[in-house]
């Protein structure tokens, strides 16, 4: 099912929670709503579900305006962060409840519930009550309950947040596979960018109720169109510098401080000519130790992160974060030579915070 949001707005009294969101979701697509908590992503989802009424704007399912459809007539399934299972019903009753409401025959309910339960790997738990299940099992029941009526749209509201880290990773894969196998259009709300980046076909980044970007994960990571996206996406976060772009002999240079002069490659030349200061961004992954071409600096701090060591150096007044192999055994005050991979650098207007490269 195709989903279109047009100028979708939600106000709670004087507070605007969601402001004029425009979004289109293709049939069978997996879209993530990503943003910090309280940004309006769940509110948007609940409007799609029919739980909240939009203050302005429209929601279309396959071209049909559904603003005034109650949830039960929207042909959707939803999975909640708190699982929202009915604690007084058994797993079987939970799973088959949507069919019961559709007045399907008992036999069908039994067969369907068993089929879904087997698919979710909880076939042996049908007689239990939700309270007797682990978090992961409960989430599988919730997913099964959302799927059993074969909805045309699946909604996920931070479904993995209450699970432990290991389970989260395996469930991530399972949900993704299930969604692709069944081909159900899905919206997945999360504040965890790794979830969004690994699972979604496209990601809608929302901040303060406003849609910041809507594109695929690769674009979002490599070609951020605003400063907010650049800072928000990626872990550890992108290093940002106040620089001045100077032109010298037809070539452009940036000066992040300490008298450094970094040549800007042609591929990263700002679209329009800029005078004065801009923000330059470079991801920790694109900073390397290079004993030949690097500039001199000292290790300010070492934070072991397991697979990598996160190193902090100073360039001018700015902390620069980057990752090295722990095998190098860098210590504080060690002298090192650093090289920025300027082919991967980003530039943003200081005022508008928009990218000078894309968008």
């Amino acid at each position: 099912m195709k989903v279109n949001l047009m100028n979708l707005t939600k106000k709670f009294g004087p507070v605007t929670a969601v402001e004029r969101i425009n979004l289109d979701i293709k049939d069978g697509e997996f879209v993530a709503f990503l943003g910090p908590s309280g940004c309006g992503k769940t509110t948007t989802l609940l409007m799609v579900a029919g739980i909240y009424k939009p203050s302005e704007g429209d929601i279309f399912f396959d071209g049909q305006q559904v603003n005034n459809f109650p949830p039960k007539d929207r042909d959707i399934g939803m999975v909640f962060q708190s699982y929202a299972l009915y604690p007084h019903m058994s797993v079987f009753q939970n799973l088959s409840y949507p069919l019961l409401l559709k007045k399907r025959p008992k036999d069908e309910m039994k067969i369907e519930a068993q089929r879904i339960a087997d698919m979710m790997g909880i076939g042996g738990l049908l007689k239990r009550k939700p309270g007797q299940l682990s978090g992961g099992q409960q989430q599988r029941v919730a997913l099964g309950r959302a799927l059993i009526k074969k909805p045309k749209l699946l909604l996920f509201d931070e479904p993995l947040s209450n699970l432990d880290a290991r389970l989260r990773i395996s469930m991530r894969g399972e949900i993704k596979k299930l969604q692709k196998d069944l081909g159900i259009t899905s919206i997945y709300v999360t504040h965890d960018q790794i979830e969004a980046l690994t699972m979604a076909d496209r990601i809608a980044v929302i901040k303060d109720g406003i849609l910041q970007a809507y594109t695929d994960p690769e674009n979002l990571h490599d070609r951020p169109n605003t400063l907010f996206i650049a800072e928000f996406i990626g872990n550890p976060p992108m290093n940002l510098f106040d620089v001045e772009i100077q032109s010298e002999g037809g070539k452009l240079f940036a000066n992040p401080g300490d008298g450094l002069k970094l040549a800007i490659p042609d591929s990263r030349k700002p679209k329009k000519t800029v005078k004065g200061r801009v923000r330059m961004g470079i991801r920790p992954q694109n900073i390397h130790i290079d004993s030949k071409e690097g500039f001199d600096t000292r290790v300010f701090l070492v934070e072991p992160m397991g697979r990598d060591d996160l190193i902090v150096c100073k360039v001018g007044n700015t902390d620069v974060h980057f990752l090295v192999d722990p095998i190098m055994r860098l210590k504080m005050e060690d002298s090192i030579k650093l090289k920025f991979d300027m082919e991967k650098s980003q530039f943003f207007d200081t005022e508008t915070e928009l990218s000078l490269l894309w968008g």
Partner: protein
Amino acid sequence: MNEDNISIYQEEKEGLDPIKRIRFRVQGKIDWFWFLLPAIVLIVAFFFLPIIITFFISGTNMSTATGFQNWKWIGVKSYQRIAAHPDTLKHLWLTIKYVAFTLVFFNLGMSLVIALLTTHIPRRAGFLFRALWLLPRITPVVIYVMMWRFIAADAPYGILNQILIKPLGLQTQNWLPAAPFLFIVLVNGFIGASFGMILFASAIESIPKDLMMASLVDGSSYWQRVRYVIIPHLRWPLLFVTTYQTLSLMTSFEQILVLTDGAYNTEVWALWAYQKAFSTYSGNLQWGFGTALAAILVLIGIILAVVYMRYFKFEELVQEPKIETL
């Protein structure tokens, strides 16, 4: 949603009739009305209507003598009669005294003392005593009053005479006619104390332990702690209990009705109104006059209830529904 709604709704899906579309919207949105309907009917029939009736009949001379047909509109005559009535001051003064004494010594005083003591001793013991203090409230009123009647009864039966007066060598008597005011205060006070007790005890228990610890470390005595830590924490419940119980004491008469039936000069204002309207003792039930007496209480009740609901801002406890659709 009923069948009717669904069919209209399906038509809307196909985008047919704009008028039906509006009807669908209206119909679908009144679920709340059906949920509230029984409550609304009862509230209208037994609160709103009676309030209006009270004020209306207080302007008539209706009584068993006039019956329901031959009554006349007499305006504020009943109120003038109250103002001029020789017993008015007596009932008013008794009511004020009764409310003040019961409130100060029991609904506030005793309840605070019990709350302080039961939160001071170990939890289980404290809980037991509080449970005992709730007994008068759950005991059917006639049984409860019967206990007090027997406590007050003359020797050799009465408990007070038997275990206190006799051993002290004093003159035994039936204490109910001898000290009727004391007994109406006691009877109501032992019921009323539990209200404040519960609120105060839970407020005291919610005082952060750190605060109590700090004052203990400072070497303060128990009384200093009560004075400087506990009482300031009880400001809200104290105010609440005072206002709430003033109103309910002012209008309560059930216990007194059973205890003395208004004899021995214990007819508080509310009982006076009740007796005028319902007591067949005098032969003529004066509904007009009785409702006029009650109307004064009703008016005070409405004003006080509105005022302190405003003051205590109960609306702030109300959360907004997080579901807006059908």
